[in-house]
């Protein structure tokens, strides 16, 4: 039992700092502004962050393989607008997600093709895609919103409560199934293997190119799901959605303890990272601190997460050293 506990604590060591930070924020809120925990606020927080969370899930996969995708914000906008246009063009609302999903996978696959198959550096490819998709969208929509959508676009034609429940359920389902798949499916372990050492993975019979391709395509898919779920909360679609999403997602992933060099990190950490960065703005409003310092505080959280991580690694190393010496003789 204690062995199991020690295994668990070792496995989740990297999530400790952000969890502690989230805990501090929540406890502080509990003392200063208990109304923060009203059901309504928690629901709104969840709904407002579910899209970032789903995008961050994809980002986690990408970062786990040692790559990065900064085109997610632009992809998000393209998918949102596409959803609106399709619905407006008369495509049945239940079919819209299918098309949007396909579009997302396609955009992700294009990244995957260039990065996974051709071996181009991901930061450059996705930087190029980021400006290219964003400007394509500006060019085609000329900045206009998609308005006068069919009445059943908002909430998929369901009751708002049911749809909200569904959106949250999809978010939870994606996060849990993602976490489960990463831990318990051979597929998930391949993601870690590629991130830990692509060459060793190749020698172990894993094709890193396919894994990277798959990870980027999956991210495209997740981005499209996030965009879809976000779009149906409203009755119109703005053409400038998702600006800055890439930095939010990367920040959440990193704050959640995933190593930017790949191979280490969990979905759980990312969810905590999203919760921490997402809650901080609202929390400040509750406490009555002006919005001017939100960015500075988020920056400090990222740096603090790094500091905590380094401290933790150092402590873990120290605790580990004797074990290392014992094994051989």
């Amino acid at each position, binding site marked *: 039992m204690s062995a199991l506990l020690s295994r668990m604590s070792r496995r989740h060591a990297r999530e400790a700092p952000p969890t502690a930070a989230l805990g501090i924020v929540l406890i502080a809120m509990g003392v200063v502004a208990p109304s923060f925990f009203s059901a309504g606020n928690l629901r709104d927080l969840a709904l407002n962050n579910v899209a970032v969370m789903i995008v961050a899930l994809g980002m986690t996969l990408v970062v786990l393989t040692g790559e990065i995708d900064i085109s997610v914000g632009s992809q998000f906008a393209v998918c949102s607008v596409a959803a609106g246009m399709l619905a407006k063009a008369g495509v049945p609302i239940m079919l819209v997600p299918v098309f949007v999903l396909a579009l997302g996978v396609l955009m992700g696959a294009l990244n995957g093709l260039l990065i996974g198959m051709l071996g181009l550096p991901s930061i450059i490819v996705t*930087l190029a895609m980021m400006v290219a998709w964003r400007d*394509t969208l*500006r060019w085609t929509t000329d*900045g206009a919103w998609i308005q006068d959508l069919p009445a059943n676009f908002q909430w998929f034609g369901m009751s708002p409560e049911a749809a909200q429940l569904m959106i949250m359920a999809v978010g939870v389902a994606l996060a849990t199934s993602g976490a489960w798949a990463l831990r318990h499916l051979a597929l998930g372990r391949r993601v870690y293997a590629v991130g830990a050492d692509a060459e060793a993975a190749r020698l172990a019979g894993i094709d890193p190119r396919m894994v990277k391709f798959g990870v980027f395509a999956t991210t495209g898919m997740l981005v499209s799901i996030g965009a879809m779920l976000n779009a149906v909360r409203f009755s119109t679609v703005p053409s400038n959605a998702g600006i800055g999403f890439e930095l939010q997602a990367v920040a959440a992933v990193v704050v959640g303890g995933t190593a930017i060099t790949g191979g280490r990190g969990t979905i759980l950490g990312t969810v905590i990272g999203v919760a921490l960065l997402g809650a901080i703005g609202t929390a400040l409003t509750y406490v009555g601190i002006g919005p*001017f310092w939100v960015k500075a505080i988020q920056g400090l959280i990222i740096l603090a997460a790094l500091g905590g991580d380094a401290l933790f690694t150092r402590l873990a190393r120290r605790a580990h050293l004797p074990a290392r010496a014992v094994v051989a003789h």
Partner: protein
Amino acid sequence: MQLSLTEARLPLRVRLFPNKEWVLLIVIVAEVVVYGITGTNFATLGNAFEITRLSVEIGLLALALTPVIVSGGIDLSIGSMMGLSAVAFGYFWRDAGLPIPVAIVFTLMIGMAGGALNAVFITRFKFPPLIVTLGTLSLYRGIAEGVTGGVQHYSGFPAGFLHLGQGYIGGHVPTQLVVLALVALWSAWSLHRTGAGRALYAIGHSAEGARYAGIPVARRLATVYVLSGAAASLAALVYVAHLGQAKSDAGTGYELMAITAVVLGGASIFGGRGTILGTLLGLFSIVLLQNGLRLTGQPAELSGILVGVLLIGTILVDVFTQHAATRAAPSPTATEQPDVRNSQVAVLSAVILLGALIVAASNWVLVNSLRHDLRGGPSMTAASPGATATHRTLIAMMPKAKGDPYFISAHKGADSAAAALGVDLLWDGPTDLDAAKQNEVVEAWITRGVNAIAVSVENREAISTVLRKARERGIKVVTWDADAEANARDFFVNQATPEGIGNTLTDEAARIMGGSGELAIITASLSAANQNEWITFIKLRLAAKYPRITLVAIQPSDGDRDRAFAETQTVLKVHPKVKVVMAIAAPAVPGAAEAVKQSGRKDVKVTGLSLPNMCRPYIKSGEIESIVLWNTMDLGALTVRVAQALASGELGAGASTLDAGRMGSFQVVGSEVRLGLPFIFNRTNIDRFNF
């Protein structure tokens, strides 16, 4: 096998362009040729200098970023550091009362301190630079916003300082170009001709290997990050001098443009490769592209797409030639040259062909759409089928941000007026609020030689210099929506003063609230100049007329509907007694209304400044009581009419009315043409408007 040890030096091509940067030279030549033929006044000396003036800030960042990337790192915080430095400089000069030179030195020290913080995290704690600078990207911008409250900005700098960003040396050479040239020369020397520079390459290839060669790795790395912070501060100084104003949003997003230039210039993001010359070529190929698109009148959005293609194209060339080289060289005896060159040339030609195709296709699309416009415009076909485009008046009109629905509707009005008046309309501007970009566009228009320029001014001090320059060149200048300095334009099309807007909004909110209660404001970004001006007048009005109304919160929406939605939700919960949410950015009103709708609160109403079409459903369902605005389509149309009348000499100083055909007659007061008072849209009249 035994080497020829007295081998000659490398050919010039290889020495200058170790990473095949000559590809960019071809791109630049292609751009010059294509735009020289298709663009107006593209290939002129004046344009050449103006282009370089516009590239100085990003150029400085790119130059500083080159050694960072060569050493295998990255610095995302430089754009934010520009914002922080700009604010710091303003503070040192105005609030601390320091003389300009001292303020400059202090500002540079702020930049170095910021760079040093990055350096400490990266070299001492060994964190990945990407994450460290992602954190400081947020941190530095956040500090700049926090200390100024987003609102405060600094202007009124002495002419001597402004000369740095606006003046000329020897009559032709922009002052800041000299700064860029000096920094470029120094960077090139220190990166390519000193031991420290060579050490950076070794570090970039293998930091461990460099350490074992006795190179003080941590010290070298710390130096490049400190220098990159200093360069960001220098860029901020040039930026402030260029725009005449220091604000916390200086340099937003510049880091990505700088990285693009460096990577395009052949630097490897993994470190160990890259040259200053390459970075400059990368920088100029992007700037030329943007400028060329502008002067040929093609949509500026193409530049993003083309830069994306160019980026991927150049690394594809690189990767393929690398592949060829490594495949051909498993042993030292391999003489792989012919092989490589063939595949290299093949890939290169493919990329250039692709680029050419895209340029050609975009030209074709453009010509087609123009032809369509000319033929399709009902007034044109009837009026003068034989008229050639060259004799038609060309009016260039700029919004604050192209993507803003407010300006989109103004564009519609302007378009129809231009068709009716038989003039050509050039509509261009920044995609997001960006004062520097506005200057850039006006510069391009001056070069292109339009008949009249109409600008919706984002930043009064910043734009005035360049508008005066346009007037000197005989171009008629109109401002609309927001004014520049009075002597920088011929006429201002005044739809409403900030005071009028503030008062109308306040009165309307007070009416809804019944004169008492809590009010919350959802603004655009925290540093948005217009909104901040309105808020000032709203506060004044509240204090003067409605003492029983308290303003409990001002939350930002960043012009993002979803953000406005979330902020409104929070405000409603934290301040449950709020009766009215006033949203003063067009996308924020529907966002706030949706939040009210989903909260189920019938006792909260939304009002604000927005467009009828966006708000129509909410006005009908009752969440929005009313919105305040003027007829934006009329505003666009009137602006075109004023510009046309000015260009044709029909309107001059001293006029008292202007006849605008269908729209009727408008009052002219001094150098202002009045559109009329702000209009209140509500349930009863909303269906009469469609924009």
